[in-house]
């Protein structure tokens, strides 16, 4: 049969680089240039390890939020979640609860916040942008109310370890967490049945539903996971700063979403790569780190980051348009 042959021809066009690969190439180029220009500070263990440490919680939340965004939804409440979790953690510790219990309660709190978002979106049917802008105010407001706006020291062996501990005495624990979360989300999104359903839902929720996929359930669980990882992010940030404060995580939603979009995830769902998100997080962090090393004022750093976002996404659009024309 002629058709079979047609199948076998396959994949010649896939030699074309995908967006994620391009991002990593950009990252490598940036890295090399920065290492040279920012010598001797930029390319040093003393700089890069803390940089990774400091982006760990952003990366972790971004990875799971990527899952939410590929399924066509969004969660703006992550920053509020981080703030509330930080406050909760510090408060519970100050009441003398054991560290492990506090961690469990904090993660459960994250789950609860995720469940609330998920309910609003899947059961009530509210647009997730609006629902989570609303809950963002709620979470952060509760954080402020609980602590009366004050920061609370959060020192406890368990909590300390989450953000500042080392595995085998050398590898910072947050980096281990970051790697673990990225491996897990990569496996989920790229290798598992679950991830397949997520992509399908993002590509066409109606067709997925009409193919027997339980769209609501999957979206709901995505929100749950997102809530929980945001709480984990809150724990890491609490540990990194040794303080629980309601301001924690303020504005992080836009940083994280920018990184995800930079990584090639499309608003509206269906397209997106966990590794792209990793690249996006790294690019924004490396840019910040380098420009700060070069004594650039914060607002100009922000300008550069904003321009990079627009430029890279323009490039995606242009590539997509060119690919369409090529057919």
């Amino acid at each position, binding site marked *: 049969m002629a058709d079979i042959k047609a199948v076998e021809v396959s994949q010649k066009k896939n030699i074309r680089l995908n967006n994620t690969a391009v991002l990593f190439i950009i990252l490598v180029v940036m890295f090399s240039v920065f290492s040279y220009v920012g010598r001797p*500070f930029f390319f*040093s263990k*003393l*700089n890069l390890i*803390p*940089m990774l*440490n*400091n982006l760990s919680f952003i990366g972790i939340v971004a990875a799971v939020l990527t899952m939410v965004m590929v399924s066509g939804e969004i969660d703006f409440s992550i920053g509020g979640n981080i703030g509330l979790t930080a406050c909760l953690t510090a408060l519970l510790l100050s009441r003398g609860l054991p560290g492990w219990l506090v961690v469990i309660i904090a993660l459960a709190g994250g789950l609860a916040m995720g469940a609330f978002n998920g309910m609003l979106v899947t059961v009530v049917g509210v647009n997730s942008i609006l629902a989570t802008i609303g809950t963002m105010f709620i979470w952060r407001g509760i954080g*402020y109310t609980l602590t*009366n*706006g*004050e*920061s*609370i*020291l959060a020192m406890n062996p368990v909590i300390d370890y989450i953000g500042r501990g080392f595995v085998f005495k050398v590898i910072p624990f947050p980096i281990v967490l970051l790697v673990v979360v990225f491996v897990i989300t990569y496996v989920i999104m790229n290798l598992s049945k679950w991830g397949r359903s997520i992509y399908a839902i993002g590509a066409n929720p109606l067709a997925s539903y009409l193919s027997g996929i339980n769209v609501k359930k999957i979206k709901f669980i995505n929100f749950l996971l997102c809530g929980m990882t945001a709480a984990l992010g809150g724990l890491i*940030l609490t540990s*990194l*700063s*040794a*303080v629980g*404060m*309601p*301001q*924690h*995580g*303020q*504005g*992080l939603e836009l940083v994280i979403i920018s990184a995800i979009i930079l990584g090639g995830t499309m608003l509206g769902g269906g397209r997106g790569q966990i590794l792209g998100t990793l690249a996006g997080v790294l690019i924004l962090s490396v840019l*910040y*780190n380098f420009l*700060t*090393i070069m*004594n650039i*004022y*914060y*607002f100009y750093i922000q300008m550069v980051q904003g321009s990079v976002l627009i430029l890279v996404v323009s490039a995606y659009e242009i590539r997509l348009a060119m690919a369409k024309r090529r057919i």
Partner: protein
Amino acid sequence: KKEAKPAEEAAKLEEELAEKEATAKELQAKLEEAEAEIAAEEAAGAYDYYYMLKEYAGKGEPYPDAPAADHTLAFTDIMGGIPFCINVWNSVQDQWKLAGGDPDKLYYADNQYDATIGLKNADIMLAKNPDALINFQFDSKVNSIISTKFGAAGIPIITVDVPCPGAPFMGCNNFKVSYMAGERAIEEVEKMGGIDKLDAIVLIQFPAGGEVLMLRSEGFYQAFVDKYGADVIDPITVRADGGAGEAEQANKAMTDILSKIPDAEYVAMTSINEETMSGCLAAIQTAGRWDPDKWFIITMGCDDVGKQQIRDGLIDGAVAFFPERYGEYLVPASIALMKGDVVPPFMYVENEIITKDNIDEWYPE
């Protein structure tokens, strides 16, 4: 004027008050202790090098022997771009030059009023391994972790305005300066005819900014309480959240506060900084309630905005923090620390109350 609150509430208020008083007293005690310590060390001549450099700094002359040459200094700014911080940063840069420092070896990062960014910046500064760090960050508790890290790396820190464990403090004693402001306002109140005529005391605060910032207005209140008693002051005190030191939110908050005290004519007021006050002033004017003779306003800082407000007759005075002179303390102290010398644990700016009468002395136009 407001009627007495129900007993329950009053009790709660009293409790809070006692707590606040305790905090204030504690602080005062610490302060006295520190002052004693400083005096002792001073007598022993331990701070001589710092004082010597500071003398040159104060005169604006190059420091002898260009002590900063070949050294590096890092400065993390609490919030780049606001007048107060611009003044501080400029003065640090000027002093660094006077000390013979290379501008390229003066590192800068902007903490953006954000603990997360502050931590990131601290780490980047750590990677640049400066000889000393001037840390200007908004949360004293977050500072403990920064202090630990720099301590481990053997890099001395000087902290600005917000305490940092184990690091010498430079800046203002928030409670003290706001107490000064309160005393000054009391003078005005007395001139006008005494406390009975005063309708309200308005404190524009930033609760989200933490305790240290709250002291910047609670001292004002305390001065009134000490003079007239809590039973007189409490019923007329209004606290409001004016936001993070930006005019916009303060303007809105003040509008609402004016509704809360619709009949108040004679009002004493302070706020966390002058940008905030400028928003409040605009609100008072817009509401048609502005009368320079009936509002007794003392602000904190006396930065460029504050000076203008004094000249414009909008405020009765400002407690000057002299941000443009912060560098005169910070750079000599940094250099002393770099050289392995010691500096006083508290370096307070000598605060002055600047009014329309004396502004031209301090800041000739």
